[in-house]
């Protein structure tokens, strides 16, 4: 049914491509291409690699805000848990591999850490929903956004200091996942790790999109975001949807953390920077707008790459923040805010 629909809707499709949303995306692509041609393709390559992971972080954040109305300031801690799990799985394996080299095992070993990190992230999200948010929901929904904001800030402090207490503050990192010579793309040396990270991001984004758009439970999640009462009336179990939403979002953050372990060695506050970036993206794209968050991830990554190259690494956070202030002044709903709206915006 939707396939035939796309054919009949080809004219609105063209109009949609000319909307502010798509113009922003085209502009980003054009800027990336111009810089790539003028200064070498580093901008495109770097922003694709980090952008993919920012997109995953931001999509999870936007999802939780959209479906559960929770501004999750503990999102970065799931990133941290991801790096931690990946480290504790991968480190012993790499030690073992140094004594007993086996190329086949070395090729798949990093995935063990990444997959386990995803599982742990999902479980942790489930536990936090069960012991914190579902309890609060049962007791009072008054001042929900404010209360959950404070709760997530508390969860973040507890998780950071809990990690500090148990595993200490030293950096736990790996220099690389795959000990292979970097590949050369258009004159840029690109480590296998970065390529794999990009591929993971790409696959996850496609799978996530498919899950949200084409499966019953993904559709139910979107339904809850748009009308909670309406969703209940149709037999959608809110508890189940809330649980799945926080699990999925935490799993995405943990996946980002585990995949980027070689760039972000694990320590208790490693999640703060990804958290801030995810918030830049979500504010830029429009709160609760998941598709916008994915596009926004790449836009912010490009901004950061360009800033650190042309202005200086220290300015990496300044430029996106300044841009967000500008966007909020002129378009308070964010760049893509008008396309998908949650209940709280109406």
């Amino acid at each position, binding site marked *: 049914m939707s396939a035939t629909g796309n054919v009949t809707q080809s004219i609105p499709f063209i109009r949609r491509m000319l909307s502010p949303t798509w113009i922003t995306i085209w502009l980003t692509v054009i800027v990336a291409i111009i810089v790539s041609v003028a200064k070498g393709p580093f901008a495109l390559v770097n922003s694709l690699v980090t952008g993919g992971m920012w997109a995953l972080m931001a999509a999870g954040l936007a999802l939780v805000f959209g479906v559960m109305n929770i501004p999750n300031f503990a999102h970065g801690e799931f990133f941290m848990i991801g790096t931690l799990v990946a480290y504790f799985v991968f480190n012993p394996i790499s030690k073992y591999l140094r004594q007993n080299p086996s190329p086949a095992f070395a090729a798949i070993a990093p995935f063990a850490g990444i997959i386990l990190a995803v599982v742990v992230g999902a479980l942790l999200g489930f536990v936090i929903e069960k012991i914190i948010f579902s309890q609060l929901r049962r007791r009072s929904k008054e001042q929900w956004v404010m209360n959950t904001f404070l709760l997530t800030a508390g969860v973040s402090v507890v998780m950071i200091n809990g990690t500090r207490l148990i595993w200490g503050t030293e950096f736990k990192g790996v220099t690389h996942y795959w000990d292979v010579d970097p590949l050369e793309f258009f004159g840029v040396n690109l480590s296998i790790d970065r390529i794999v990270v990009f591929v993971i991001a790409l696959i996850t984004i496609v799978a996530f999109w498919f899950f949200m758009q084409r499966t019953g439970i993904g559709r139910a999640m979107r339904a809850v975001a748009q*009308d909670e*009462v309406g969703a209940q009336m149709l037999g959608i179990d809110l508890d189940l949807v809330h649980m799945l939403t926080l699990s999925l979002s935490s799993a995405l953050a943990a996946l980002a953390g585990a995949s980027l372990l070689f760039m972000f060695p694990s320590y208790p506050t490693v999640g703060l920077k990804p958290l801030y970036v995810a918030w830049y993206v979500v504010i830029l794209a429009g709160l609760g707008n998941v598709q916008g968050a994915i596009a926004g991830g790449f836009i912010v990554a490009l901004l950061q790459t360009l800033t650190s190259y042309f202005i200086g690494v220290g300015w990496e956070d300044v430029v996106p923040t300044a841009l967000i202030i500008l966007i909020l002044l002129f378009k308070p709903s964010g760049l893509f805010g008008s396309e998908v*709206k949650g209940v709280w915006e109406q």
Partner: protein
Amino acid sequence: MLEVKNVDAGYDFLQVIWDVTLHVADGEFVALIGPNGAGKTTTLRTIAGLLTPPRGQVRFQDRPINGLPAHRISRMGISFVSETLNLFPAMSVYENLLLGAYTVHNKAAIQTNLSFVFDLFPRLHERRNQLAGTLSGGERKMLAIARGMMSSPALMLVDEPSLGLAPKLTLAVFAALQALRQRGVTILLVEQNVNTTLHMADRAYVIEQGRIVLEGQGTDLLNNVHVQKAYLGI
């Protein structure tokens, strides 16, 4: 099929309905009429499980359902078409309908229901790829009713389908309800359009200030002095 016994209900500290007792038999078309603020919507919301009654019992197919969460009640076969419609504005008509069949796992049954509602409301078929938020008022009503039918419910609770509709569209909506009834769906309808409703309904209850004050055959109520005076202006 549905029995509501001595139910009190309301919102927090504001009680809206007192001691409401009503029943709907299998295949029946029952109407609940009354002025604004009488508690009609509150009654339906209580049956649908969106409100938990502090007192009284609601039974559906001989099982108590008061206190169950709304999604469980919906899964038992009660479909609620609310006054506010509760559509998903950023989803297409087609997706809204698919969500209506969220509890149906048989693909063939979903297709059958889909073609049934598209037959009933050809307009929805024309607009199936349009976002629900961009539909006109009448189309939204049709979509809400159609979505409520997608789960093949045993009982439909319909809240003021004619509210805010042009007379012609009101007729279309009533015709759809008739079609549903012929299909064997039991209906509990809340309406302010008393004349048409009483002509269509098998039985009706009149609710005033939170209490049931009258009940009877639809045609009998049309001749009732109180109903004529208060609702029909005769």
